[in-house]
């Protein structure tokens, strides 16, 4: 039981580190470039902005769900001992 908890915690911390690195890269590459374009849309094309905003958050929701699930699947066997 205690070993299970230790393994789960180790998996979680490894996932957190890998995830943090990926998210940091995501900021600088994606959000930085999207910022100006989204601001223009917000000021000039409010209806288009509304649908683009929803598509972005839905898309990010799906991508991050897959990413966190894959990370857990990949990390778990590498952090379990015995």
């Amino acid at each position, binding site marked *: 039981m205690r070993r299970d908890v230790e393994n789960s915690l180790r998996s*979680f911390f490894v*996932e*957190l580190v890998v*995830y943090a690195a990926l*998210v940091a890269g*995501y*900021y600088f590459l994606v*959000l930085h470039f*999207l*910022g*100006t374009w*989204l*601001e223009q849309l*917000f000021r000039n094309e*409010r*209806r288009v*902005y*509304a*649908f*683009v*905003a*929803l598509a*972005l*958050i*839905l898309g*990010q*929701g*799906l991508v*991050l*769900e897959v*990413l*966190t*699930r894959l990370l*857990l699947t990949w990390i778990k066997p590498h952090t379990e001992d015995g």
Partner: protein
Amino acid sequence: MTFPISGVHINPIYLIAVGFVVGILGGFFGVGGSFLAGPALFVAGVPMNFVVGTDLAHIVGKSIVAARKHRTLGNIDIKLGLIMVAGTIAGVEAGAQAIQALKRTAHMDSVVGLSFVVILLGVSGFMTWESVKTLRGQRRARAAGRHSSRRDHSAVAFIARAVHRINLPPHIRLPVSGIARASLWAILLVAFIGGFFSGFLGGGAGYIRMPCLVYLLGIPTHIAVGTDLFEIIISASYGTITHAFKGNVDILIALVMHTGAAIGAQIGATLTQYFGGPRIRLAFIPLPLLGAALMIYGLVTGHPTK
């Protein structure tokens, strides 16, 4: 980091941390967490109109992550969720109309604030009484050797049985939730109540809908949490679009918050496997109390907190 749409300067780490905490709560309890995320954004300097719309946008992304996790755990009744969407959207519109009507009076803030406090304290008080009574009953049953740990017990299951007996056609079956027969109108009414409070008080109103699903419709707690999240994806998407039309959504803030919420929601949803229904309901109780405390603070100091 400056967010050009709303024009505010916020540390992204702060947004990720807020998203992470609210994500855990959302995954575990099936709530949007606007009663925490709203004040957290407001304190960081986000204008109130952006707080409401941006919070809804972030709830959409977070609910996708948590709902997919709950789906793999078998905790979503899709048929129930789709039926509820109609009642929720009608309720949101009715709640928004009630706000418009109140805007014409001078007491809107105090009426909405006091309603919020009374409802949250009522939900919290009732759930405390019910969960403690259920857990005591379970302990007695276990001592007598007639306890089944697989069932989601409730001390007020008679309420749901009375709702199931409502003889107003059409009737439907919800096999995933273990309900043999329930009036469609009863389900729509429960969804309408949740939607009304969402439109009237803001946020996803999961603190109303989740208890309503459990106590009024008799949905097992785990399925109520998962189905509520599934339903929130659709109703919060609707809210995001309408608020974005009005210029109330800073999607960049929502995207940053959501990166923290995504991992928090996974953790919260996974944790539900380790707790029984009454224990999840018992752990839920401090959330409405916290929301009520924030609102009382806002009313007393004159600072809006949502």
